[in-house]
Structures are given as structure tokens and as C-alpha cells.
């Protein structure tokens, strides 16, 4: 839309809830959560997990919905304008540019990973992998990524073409707009995601002991690995921080995406119930479905000790190496079909998140520069396509990991802390409380007023300091980085600094040009 035109709106409330839930439900729900639970006390992990869901996750959701809808009243669909409204200071908009930086930086590499899920769903149904071992499947994945070559993939071009296809779908959805694009996608992709996940979970429940020669390797023992509580783990502060981190990542807060979606609401539209419904949907995808697929089936096929190794190897190892081995195993009937469903559900989880990451910059260009949506989406597509080349071709040198750490991990908690302090302390807790409850189908219990004002910022501060000491400093100093990777790590940092500087200059120019007239 242009500055003089009407802002777009969501078609239906359920469409909005599915779109925001789609933003929250991502690859992490199905790959990161079960690994975190299994490694951090099993069922006992759920105690800090639920505590932080109440003290951190739900409050942040409501804060972001509140900031977003409030910004929308002033025709701002992105964080720079929203922060400028809640904090009358010339620096506010530059703090807000962090919301643009995080979403666009994650979008650059996330869409590439998302294209792998689309590719692997096709490879599953085409039967390109079967009876694989850990070594051959690792080779399959790395040759697909262009890191090595194999009989199946002799170059990176299949991955490149699938990346272009994934990008095209993403930007076509963004091009269509809020109601006709993003909402329509959510209404199709989210029900399909849940149907596929439920079918997979039921299939895995009924697998029992796939190979009777190994009775210990069973789905029941897989559930035991995740759910049998180890209460002694609760005395370990790392477990509590892991739970806070998981809640933080799973709800996709601290990215500027929820703000952008909420800005298309009317001032009296409910956000309290919508926020709760969104968070609940995400938790259902994570705790009920996510914990019932990958880890239980891995224990059933590989055994407990091997699954512990797989879990320690990280989410990609579990999703793209271990799961295809299982689906290609002769003890998993119709594995091609279930493999197709597994990777397609990951693709749906991914695309509903990636379109949300594109929306803040599109809204910024529309609202602050008066661009029409098509031009804004085209500009974003060109920028992202240029930047993703580095991620694709320098993947093996840790380029993606470096971007993921600073934008997709540490940046999120910094942004979340800034927005919480600005909304609850600078804008004012009373005004923020009134804003969030305005038009609510239910009212937020008063308990959360104090949680949002005092507890949530303290938890975020502790998380930020902890991560700074534990991982940000070693990452910054390039500990454990191979010498040949160092130039590429610097390249990733230069790219991120360039993105941040360009965004801040754009913010400056927007406010110099015409922002004062709009206000």
C-alpha cells in the first residue's frame, strides 16, 4: 500500500491465528525440542519449560502483539516506527532497525534450509535413498549441499534450483499480500502440517519394536528417553536456562515478525485470546507432536545409546540424516510416503515462518517509503537473493552458522529485552497493560502485569548475560574455528554489518524524507 492508501487487513481471526502460529511453528518444534527435553532431565525438563512458558513465552507474545497493534494505529508495520511511537526519542527508530536486521538476516539462510526440506520430500517420494547407513546418508546430504560429490549429486545445481523454487514460492506469497497471500498460505499449510504430523505420530506409536531381534529398541523406550523424569537435573542451572532458551526460540519472539502481523489489526481487535491461541497451537505442535516423532522412532531403530549420539550431533543430523535412514529402512513399510510427509511437514513449518520473516521489511518499505507492495517485495527478493549466494557457496566454511548465531540466537534475546523495557517501562506499564487488554475477548490476569514488568525483563537479562559469557564471547573470539574458515567467518560478519548499516541508513532517510509529515 502507499502512504495515502488503506492498510491491508486480515480476512479472518482464525486466519490471523494460523498465520502467527505458522510463524512460531518451525523446524525447531520437531527437531530441537525433543533433543532438548531428552538431554535436560526428560520429563523433569517440563517443569522449568512450563514455568518459563508462563513467565517468558506468553508475556512476550502479548507484549509483541500489543506493540504491533499499537504501531499499526500509526501506520507502522515494522519495529522502527513502532519503537518511535512508544519512545519519543530520536534513537528509538534505530533500536527498532534491529527488528528488521534480525528478520531479514534469518530469512537469508532459513529459506535455503527450507529448500532442503522441499528437496528431501521429493527425494523421499522418488525413492532416491533407501537402505542407507549413517556414512552414506551423510554423504548424500553433503553432496546435495555441494560440499562433496556422490553418485546421486555431482554438483550443487539441484540444491540451487530447489532454492530458487522455494524463494519463488515465498516471494509469490508475500507479493499477494496479507490476506490473499500469507493468510491463505497459513489456512492451507497449517492444517496439512498437523494432519501429516498426526499421521506420522500414530504410525510411530504403532511401530512397537521394529526389529524383534533387538527388543530394547522400541518406541516405548523412545518415549521413556524423553519423558522419564530425572529430578536431580532440576538442581542444575543449565537445565533451567535450556528450558528458558527453548521457550524463547519456539515462539519466534524477538524477531519483529509478530509485530508486523499484529500491525494489520484494527485498534479494537482482540489480541489477548489470539496470542494465547497462537502460543497453545505452537505448544501442541511441539510437546504433543514434536516429541512423538523423531526421537521415539530414532530409539526404535538405532537404540538408546546411538540416539544419544544423534541428539548430541544436533537437529540437522537428526532431521536430514537419521530420519531418512529410518524411512529408507525395510522395517518401515511405505517409508517413501512417510518420508515425503515428514519433509513436507517440515517445509510447511518452514515456509509459514519464512514469509513472516519477509513481512517486516516489506511493511517498512511500504509504510515508511510509500512503496507499493509489489515493488517492496521485489526489492526484498533481490537483496535476499544476492545475500543467499554467500550462504550457499560458503556453507562448508561456517558462513551460515555465524549468521545464525548472531541474528538467530543472540540477536533475538537482545531485541526481546529492548522491546520489553521500552513497552513496560518507557511507554509505561499501565499504558501498555491498557493497550494489550483493549478489545480483548478475555482479559489478561493481573498476575501477568507484574510478570511483564519485573520478571520477564529479569529473565531476559539473565539469559542475555549467560549467553554472552557462555557462547557469544567464544564465538566472537572464534574459538574452535578452523584456520581456513576464518576469512569466511569475517565475510559473514562483514555481510551482517553491511545489512545493519544499510537498514539504519534507510531508517534515517525515511524519517528525513517524509516521516514527520505522516506523523
Amino acid at each position, binding site marked *: 500500500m502507499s502512504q495515502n492508501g488503506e492498510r491491508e487487513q486480515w480476512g479472518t*481471526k*482464525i486466519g490471523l491465528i494460523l498465520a502467527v502460529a505458522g510463524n512460531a511453528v518451525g523446524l525447531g518444534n520437531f527437531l530441537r525440542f525433543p533433543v532438548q527435553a531428552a538431554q535436560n532431565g526428560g*520429563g523433569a525438563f517440563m517443569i522449568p519449560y*512450563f514455568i518459563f512458558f508462563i513467565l517468558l513465552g506468553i508475556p512476550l507474545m502479548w507484549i509483541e502483539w500489543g506493540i504491533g497493534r499499537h504501531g499499526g494505529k500509526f501506520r507502522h508495520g515494522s519495529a522502527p516506527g513502532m519503537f518511535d511511537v512508544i519512545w519519543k526519542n530520536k534513537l528509538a527508530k534505530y533500536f527498532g532497525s534491529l527488528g528488521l536486521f534480525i528478520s531479514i538476516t534469518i530469512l537469508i539462510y532459513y529459506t535455503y534450509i527450507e529448500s532442503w526440506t522441499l528437496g528431501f520430500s521429493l527425494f523421499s517420494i522418488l525413492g532416491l535413498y533407501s537402505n542407507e547407513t549413517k556414512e552414506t546418508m551423510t554423504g548424500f546430504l553433503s553432496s546435495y549441499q555441494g560440499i562433496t560429490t556422490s553418485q546421486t549429486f555431482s554438483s550443487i545445481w539441484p540444491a540451487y534450483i530447489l532454492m530458487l523454487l522455494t524463494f519463488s514460492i515465498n516471494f509469490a506469497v508475500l507479493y499477494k499480500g496479507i490476506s490473499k497471500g500469507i493468510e491463505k498460505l497459513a489456512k492451507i499449510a497449517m492444517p496439512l502440517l498437523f494432519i501429516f504430523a498426526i499421521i506420522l505420530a500414530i504410525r510411530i506409536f504403532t511401530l512397537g519394536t521394529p526389529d524383534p531381534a533387538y527388543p530394547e529398541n522400541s518406541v516405548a523406550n523412545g518415549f*521413556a528417553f524423553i*519423558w522419564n523424569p530425572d529430578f536431580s537435573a532440576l538442581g542444575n542451572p543449565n537445565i533451567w536456562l535450556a528450558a528458558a532458551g527453548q521457550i524463547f526460540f519456539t515462539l519466534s519472539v524477538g524477531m519483529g515478525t509478530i509485530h508486523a502481523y499484529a500491525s494489520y489489526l484494527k485498534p479494537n481487535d482482540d489480541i489477548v485470546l489470539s496470542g494465547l*491461541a497462537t502460543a*497453545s497451537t505452537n*505448544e501442541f505442535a511441539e510437546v504433543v507432536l514434536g516429541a512423538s516423532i523423531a526421537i521415539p522412532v530414532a530409539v526404535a531403530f538405532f537404540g538408546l545409546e546411538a540416539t544419544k549420539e544423534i541428539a548430541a550431533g544436533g537437529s540437522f543430523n537428526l532431521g536430514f540424516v537419521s530420519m531418512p535412514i529410518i524411512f529408507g529402512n525395510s522395517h518401515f513399510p511405505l517409508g517413501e510416503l512417510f518420508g515425503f510427509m515428514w519433509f513436507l511437514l517440515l517445509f510447511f513449518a518452514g515456509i509459514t515462518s519464512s514469509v513472516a520473516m519477509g513481512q517486516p521489511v516489506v511493511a517498512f518499505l511500504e509504510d515508511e517509503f510509500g512503496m507499493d507492495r509489489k515493488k517492496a517485495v521485489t526489492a526484498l527478493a533481490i537483496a535476499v537473493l544476492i545475500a543467499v549466494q554467500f550462504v550457499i557457496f560458503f556453507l562448508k566454511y561456517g558462513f551460515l552458522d555465524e549468521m545464525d548465531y548472531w541474528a538467530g540466537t543472540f540477536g533475538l534475546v537482545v531485541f526481546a529485552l529492548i522491546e520489553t523495557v521500552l513497552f513496560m517501562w518507557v511507554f509505561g506499564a499501565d499504558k501498555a497493560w491498557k493497550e494489550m487488554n483493549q478489545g480483548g475477548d478475555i482479559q489478561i490476569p493481573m498476575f501477568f502485569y507484574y510478570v511483564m514488568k519485573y520478571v520477564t525483563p529479569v529473565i531476559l537479562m539473565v539469559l542475555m548475560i549467560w549467553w554472552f559469557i557462555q557462547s557469544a564471547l567464544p564465538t566472537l573470539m572464534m574459538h574452535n574455528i578452523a584456520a581456513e574458515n576464518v576469512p569466511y567467518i569475517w565475510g559473514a560478519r562483514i555481510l551482517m554489518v553491511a545489512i545493519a548499516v544499510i537498514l539504519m541508513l534507510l531508517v534515517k532517510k525515511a524519517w528525513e524524507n517524509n516521516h514527520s509529515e505522516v506523523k
Partner: protein
Amino acid sequence: MGLTINGIIFLVLAWTIIISMVIFSFYKVFKGEEKK
């Protein structure tokens, strides 16, 4: 190994809390939409 009683309690409790939240919130959403 197998699921212990404590494991079953945690699994059932977590699922019950989450499914109750989903049912409550979506019931309210659809009820609100009907009124409008």
C-alpha cells in the same frame, strides 16, 4: 527401561495442560466469531 509411572504422569500431565489450552482458546475464538 520403558516408561516409568513418573514418566507417564509427566507425559499425561503435559499433554492434558496443552490440549486443554488449545481447546479453551479455540472454543473462545469460535464462540466470539459466532457472536460477531
